[in-house]
């Protein structure tokens, strides 16, 4: 491919820069970093994103809402801007390129997409780009948080700027070595080919291309029409490691003397240890090396995790009450009801639709439980773990240990799922404390029961809506979301904003900001308001995947169906008419067409449709659900069946797509998540603790629940900028499943998941000891 960065011959090279930009192309500043081989860096430059919303005709336009002009992704990027010049790419002597991504990959595929972005700009093959996860770098300030589906949006341009500069330097070096005009050179697969077929590899050129001084250089980026990697499906680059068992998670690391460690936890949520009756007895058990009381429980270190668990089970501990002692679902719901904000719009004529929905606690527990390794010495500490906020974690750990922050090294390992949970560093902080107390390295792992009962949760919330509707218009639409406080004290990834969030009322302001920056009512429903109130009640919460949106969208889409019924319209046609712009209508139309909206359905089955906009994108889902008794009542051992979503058609448009295969994967995951949220999985708070202790209590989607038919459409978009994908599959699907269920059964649910008040299909596991014993009959179940 001919090089695209060449200026027209008439344009003189500007002194002091390497610029050869065609006229009119936007320039970016990159940095050469003094080093023996080529090292480049970059900073952000503001880009326009998408055009504003177009007003639609017949419906009464609502005033523009905050996220349409400036949303959470913009906030995260702007927070990142001042320090992004520290993002560096290095060209190695073997011709590969290295980049330490200051983000956390927990399966969302950002390592692969980052390899693709660099490979595109530098004319490399994807496999020639080595992307690792950066250690905590406090100098990055805001720029080391992974959250809000923001990674690609925030890093896309700076990474490209650095890569473009590296490519330019390599070409310049090649031109000099070959003594040929740079415009005659082509770069492909890490090789630069000149006239007469002379070839140099990037590895041959990296020393010649290196800079002896730090220098600012202007570059232009490859235009979209020249892309050959971005936008093409690419499989995850770590797949071979995964399928051969080589991918290394925190507990797979072999750190010398970091022995398995488990904490004995209180029966109450956040209960603390008072005293231990038999500590020495447990210290003498086989394999056990140490038993110590720490702030969150009693830590047991052993030769194997099995023996550490045995030690935990043998401990007799006297506990102090926890933070929600004696509380239950009912008492918490009553407190939420008392905090509900009033509606603001007086009756404006027409008919009023009032609705109220309750969303119970959900678990964000990933398959990899909270885990971390800590090696704390008198003057320093080294920590390993999957952390989405390593800088804030580092500050918190340093404070806990009484060490300066720069004495704590935090290595970010690849995570086994996050779903918002790894925004916090609970295991790392605990591992550090235990290692300091024992004076030895520890490999600390939460057991499943710990992770399920004591881990962070999606808070219980109510969502109320009042809408007024005439024969052919919606005059007002008010949504009041009232939630147990969502913990945002991780801040934006650094200690400064985290401290702000911990100040009195700081978290509520932060939560309200996140709500305001993410939530849009996508329909022209006249006077439209959305307000959040949160109440701190002592729970461990975090931003579970898609945060407020699954609940907000479920309530909104259910009421939208009711409004459609009031005006006598079909749910799809009604949405189509009231959606605010054509971009939104495009995804709705796509699912209606592909999913055959309106096809005849058997009694007890139905279609449902939902829409959601967030992350600079638009999405729609059309689902079919089967609520017939023979389906609902089918029996699976220790499983929950219930209504079966038989088909999902999902359309998403998020601007420029880096890796369509990865986007599809994220939507598929979000769809399966949504099924669980609406139909099958929740935590039950009873007498100060959560009942659910494992996957046979908490009914996350399983093979027997997943839709047999699933069709994901990634719509092409003209934009130059990517939106966010990691969480986007949920909200529209939640809305569509809830609507389908209501249409199939003729009953609009008042709470979610719909099975929350069913009798437990399991015997609750004991609270003392806090970990169930591993069975011994595993060989009876071979197949």
């Amino acid at each position: 491919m001919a090089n695209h960065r060449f200026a027209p011959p008439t344009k003189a090279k500007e002194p002091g820069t390497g610029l050869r930009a065609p006229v009119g192309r936007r320039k970016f500043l990159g940095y050469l970093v003094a080093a023996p081989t080529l090292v480049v860096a970059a900073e952000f430059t503001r880009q326009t994103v998408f055009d504003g919303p177009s007003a639609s005709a017949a419906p009464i336009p609502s005033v523009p809402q905050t996220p349409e002009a400036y949303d959470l992704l913009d906030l995260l990027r702007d927070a990142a801007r001042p320090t992004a010049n520290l993002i560096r790419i290095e060209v190695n002597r073997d011709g590969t390129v290295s980049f330490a991504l200051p983000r956390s990959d927990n399966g969302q595929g950002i390592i692969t997409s980052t390899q693709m972005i660099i490979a595109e700009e530098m004319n490399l093959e994807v496999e020639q780009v080595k992307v690792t996860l950066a250690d905590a770098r406090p100098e990055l300030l805001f720029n080391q948080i992974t959250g809000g589906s923001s990674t690609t949006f925030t890093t896309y341009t700076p990474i490209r700027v650095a890569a473009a500069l590296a490519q330019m330097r390599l070409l310049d070096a090649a031109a000099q070595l070959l003594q040929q005009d740079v415009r005659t050179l082509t770069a492909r697969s890490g090789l630069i080919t000149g006239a007469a077929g002379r070839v140099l590899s990037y590895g041959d050129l990296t020393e010649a291309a290196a800079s002896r001084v730090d220098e600012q250089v202007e570059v232009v980026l490859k235009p979209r029409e020249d892309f050959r990697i971005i936008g093409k499906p690419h499989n995850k680059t770590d797949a071979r490691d995964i399928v051969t068992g080589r991918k290394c998670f925190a507990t797979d690391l072999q750190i010398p003397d970091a022995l398995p460690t488990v904490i004995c936890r209180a029966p109450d949520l956040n209960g603390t240890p008072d005293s231990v009756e038999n500590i020495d007895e447990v210290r003498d058990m086989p394999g056990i090396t140490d038993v110590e009381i720490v702030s969150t429980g009693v830590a047991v270190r052993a030769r194997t995790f099995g023996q550490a668990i045995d030690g935990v089970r043998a401990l007799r501990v006297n506990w102090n009450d926890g933070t929600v002692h004696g509380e239950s679902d009912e008492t918490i719901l009553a407190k939420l009801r008392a905090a509900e904000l009033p509606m603001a719009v007086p009756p404006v004529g027409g008919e009023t639709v009032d609705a109220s929905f309750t969303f119970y606690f959900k678990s964000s527990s990933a398959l990899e439980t909270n885990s971390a390794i800590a090696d704390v010495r008198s003057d320093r500490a080294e920590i390993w773990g999957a952390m989405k906020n390593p800088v804030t974690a580092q500050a918190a750990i340093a404070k806990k240990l009484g060490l300066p922050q720069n004495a704590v090294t935090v290595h970010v390992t690849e995570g086994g799922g996050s779903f918002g949970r790894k925004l916090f560093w609970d295991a790392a902080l605990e591992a550090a404390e235990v290692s300091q107390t024992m004076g030895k390295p520890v490999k600390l792992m939460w057991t499943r029961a710990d992770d399920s009962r004591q881990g962070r949760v999606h808070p219980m919330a109510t969502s109320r809506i009042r809408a007024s509707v005439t024969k052919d218009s919606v005059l007002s639409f008010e949504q009041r979301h009232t939630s147990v406080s969502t913990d945002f004290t991780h801040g934006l990834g650094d200690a400064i904003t985290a401290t702000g969030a911990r100040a009195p009322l700081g978290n509520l302001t932060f939560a309200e900001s996140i709500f305001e920056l993410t939530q849009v009512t996508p329909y022209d429903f006249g006077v439209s308001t959305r307000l959040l109130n949160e109440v701190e009640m002592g729970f461990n919460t975090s931003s579970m995947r898609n945060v407020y949106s699954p609940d907000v969208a479920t309530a909104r889409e259910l009421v939208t169906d009711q409004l459609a019924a009031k005006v006598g319209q079909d749910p799809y046609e009604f949405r189509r008419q009231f959606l605010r712009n054509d971009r939104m209508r495009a995804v709705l139309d796509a699912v209606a067409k592909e999913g055959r909206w309106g096809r005849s359905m058997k009694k007890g089955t139905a279609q449902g449709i939902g829409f959601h906009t967030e992350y600079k994108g638009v999405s729609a889902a059309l689902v079919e659900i089967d609520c017939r008794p023979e389906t609902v009542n089918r029996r699976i051992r220790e499983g929950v069946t219930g209504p079966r979503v038989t088909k999902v058609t999902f359309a998403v448009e998020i601007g420029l797509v880096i890796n369509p295969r990865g986007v599809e994967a994220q939507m598929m995951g979000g769809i399966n998540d949504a099924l669980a949220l609406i139909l099958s999985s929740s935590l039950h708070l009873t007498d100060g603790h959560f009942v659910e202790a494992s996957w046979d209590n908490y009914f996350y989607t399983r093979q027997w629940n997943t839709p047999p038919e699933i069709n994901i459409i990634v719509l092409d978009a003209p934009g130059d900028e990517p939106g966010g994908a990691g969480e986007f599959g949920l909200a529209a699907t939640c809305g569509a499943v809830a609507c389908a269920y209501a249409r199939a059964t003729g009953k609009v649910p008042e709470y979610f998941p719909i099975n929350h008040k069913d009798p437990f299909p399991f015997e609750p596991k004991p609270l003392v000891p806090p970990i169930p014993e591993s069975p011994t009959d595993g060989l009876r179940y071979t197949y």
Partner: protein
Amino acid sequence: MPTHTFTLNGERVTVDVEDDVRLLWVIRDMLGVTGPKYGCGINVCKACTCHINGKAFNPCSVPVGAVSESDEITTIEGLADGDELHPMQKAWIEQDVPQCGFCQPGQIMAAVAKVRQCQREGRDVDDEAIEEIRNICRCGTYNRIREAIKAGADEM
């Protein structure tokens, strides 16, 4: 301390450990073979699925004392034939199944055993058979898992 000998991924191994320690911890913590993952410890999530004498089982729920010298244990690390991946592993890559990958070693071991079981019993590897697989994937890769199992089964 009791001694236990068995075959792990084609190699004879011997460990000194109490009889009641579950095999998962012997494999992971003592032998350093970390493909099988802990996800629940009570034979529910199936993340640790391995093979014993060719059949799927969960070492989190088998005391090492219950394993005899003649038993052959295979973890995900032992599924491939050297550098030549098992057809199910290839199908997993081809279908781009994994997201975080934590459950996938167990998913693949379960899939291979399920296909073998269907072959023994003369059943089709269809949706009904696949829905007997209990392994949890919290990333929600189930739909690609289905495609991969069917594709892998065709090559087995």
